């Protein structure tokens, strides 16, 4: 095979090269830009929500429907347009082919189609702010409200369809890529943990997305075509939608969690110069274990919805059981850091803070898994705070760790300046100031999603503290995003492998890599692993 050149020098910006690109790295960058745009708008919605909640009674809006629109966009955009595309779109697209020694993904044109489906969904979601009858169905779209509301539920449904179709095409593409396009001699036990977690996330997407797509399609039929899938009065079953929705949406938590975990392993191994502790237990017990159990835990979202006890108890057991594979993964993370020579740069700071976030989120999940306790906590701010720690904050911080870790690979420059450190500390302090008070008011009965809480005026100080926390996060994120933009343009040059990593994306291709990725065909020495650091 001809040695292909691999530098990213171009003669200026050409938009056609981006619109028509089939290069996995450019597609990854497009995912990053799109998902960060969704993050910014959804973050502004979060700020509006928190400001509205800072006083009893109307604060910045006296229209509950307006508040519902903010909630809708915040939830739907953060999960479907930021976390999932950021982790499985950006990180997988850019780095998975580099990690396995491939020149691109298996089906580059389908990959290009996927990114434009994603952008179509982003545009559709943003039209929420333009159309007169904005969707107001949260990210869940529960009937009967979503069927009877005057809000435009069709926008919600079509956004889910577009993102789902994009994810399914991505899943097929990446599974084939890992199966068929690994460098010669690269066995399954030599894959980066990030590759394993991404494969697992895509496998979950492939199995469960069709269920969500079917559920929202039936919702669409009920609202606009007069069917009665979820209309109990006409022989339908309103709870069926909730079951179908969570049959996808709990596994979706792991679609976000797993690639986030994969990023953390890459950062821990490279910054600690250690092998992955208990690699096989982590991969086959932890990652594959989650894939096996993830479809058996959705009922814990519906404990108070009404169902037979045998089902509730059974799913309580499976919900608790999934903490075993998660525990194996967390154990491997800590083991990887054991006696490591850790470099504490910004990537490592974000990654280390994830250990705290996953611990807090995991521990607060245990009472929610227990049927007797959940009755008191269900639909309160306790749940709201829990899932922000375990899913939203953990995964977002892991993604930020990944961005700082791979920044030199993408741009040839580092982003570890004082602004980055300031952003990290502001974000860390901000998320704790925001969500700890919500645990407290949640335990005392503060309902989730309410526009106002005049029946609980005693909670006002807690909400005010949380609002201050949200503003600290806004400052931290502004500093973080500004730092990325400034560093990409004029950050200090990083060199080819600034972290002295052993992973292929650092050792075998330049920073930034050009078309074809690798200047020479990748030849792996016998016994090679991406974590080939000297044993301590």
């Amino acid at each position: 095979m001809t040695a292909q050149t691999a530098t990213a020098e171009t003669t200026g910006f050409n938009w056609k090269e981006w619109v028509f690109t089939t290069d996995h790295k450019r597609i990854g960058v497009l995912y990053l830009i799109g998902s960060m745009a969704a993050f910014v708008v959804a973050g502004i919605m979060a700020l509006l929500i928190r400001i509205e909640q800072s006083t009893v009674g109307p604060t910045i809006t006296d229209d509950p429907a307006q508040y519902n629109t903010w909630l809708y966009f915040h939830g739907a955009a953060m999960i479907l347009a930021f976390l999932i595309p950021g982790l499985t779109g950006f990180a997988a697209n850019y780095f998975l082919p580099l990690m396995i020694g491939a020149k691109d993904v298996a089906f580059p044109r389908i990959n290009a189609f996927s990114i434009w489906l994603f952008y179509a969904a982003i545009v559709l979601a943003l039209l929420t702010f333009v159309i007169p009858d904005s969707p107001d169905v949260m990210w869940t779209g529960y009937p009967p409200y979503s069927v009877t509301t005057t809000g435009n539920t069709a926008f919600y449904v079509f956004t889910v369809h577009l993102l789902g179709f994009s994810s399914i095409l991505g899943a097929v593409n990446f599974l084939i890529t890992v199966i068929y396009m690994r460098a010669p001699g690269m066995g399954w036990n030599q894959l980066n943990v990030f590759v394993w977690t991404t494969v697992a996330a895509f496998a979950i997407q492939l199995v469960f997305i069709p269920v969500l797509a079917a559920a929202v399609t039936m919702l669409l039929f009920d609202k606009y075509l007069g069917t009665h899938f979820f209309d109990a009065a006409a022989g339908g079953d309103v709870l069926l939608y909730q079951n179908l929705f969570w049959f996808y949406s709990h596994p979706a938590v792991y679609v976000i969690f797993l690639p986030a975990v994969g990023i953390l392993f890459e950062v821990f191994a490279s910054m600690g110069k250690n092998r992955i502790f208990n690699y096989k237990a982590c991969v086959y017990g932890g990652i594959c274990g989650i894939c096996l159990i993830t479809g058996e835990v959705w009922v814990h979202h519906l404990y108070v919805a009404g169902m037979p006890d045998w089902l509730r108890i059974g799913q309580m057991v499976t919900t608790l059981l999934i903490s075993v594979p998660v525990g194996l993964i967390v154990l491997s993370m800590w083991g990887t850091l054991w006696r490591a020579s850790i470099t504490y740069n910004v990537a490592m700071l974000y990654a280390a803070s994830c250990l705290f976030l996953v611990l807090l989120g995991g521990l607060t999940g245990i009472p929610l898994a227990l049927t007797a306790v959940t009755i008191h906590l269900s639909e309160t701010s306790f749940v709201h705070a829990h899932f922000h720690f375990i899913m939203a904050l953990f995964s977002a911080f892991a993604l930020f760790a990944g961005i700082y870790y791979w920044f030199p690979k993408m741009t040839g420059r580092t982003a570890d300046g004082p602004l980055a450190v300031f952003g990290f500390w502001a974000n860390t302090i901000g998320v704790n100031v925001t969500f700890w008070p919500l645990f407290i008011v949640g335990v005392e009965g503060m309902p989730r999603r309410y526009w106002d809480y005049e029946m609980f005026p005693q909670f006002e100080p807690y909400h005010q503290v949380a609002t201050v926390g949200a503003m600290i996060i806004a400052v931290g994120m502004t500093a973080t995003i500004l730092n990325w933009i400034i560093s990409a343009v004029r950050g200090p040059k990083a060199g080819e492998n600034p972290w002295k990593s052993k992973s292929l994306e650092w050792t075998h291709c330049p920073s930034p890599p050009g078309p074809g990725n690798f200047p020479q065909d990748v030849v792996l020495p016998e016994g090679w692993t991406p974590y080939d650091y000297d044993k301590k």
Partner: protein
Amino acid sequence: MAQNNQTIDLSGAPDKLPTGKGPWLIAGGLLIFAVSMYFGLIYKVSHFGP
């Protein structure tokens, strides 16, 4: 193939594709699985009830 220091590949890069029928068969099978789940579920739910 249009790849060099100064240009970005716009061609779809056919020589990057895996060779043989295997990848296409697996990809096709996975897509058929997903589409069958989607339509099968709607069909099944439409036949629920007394």
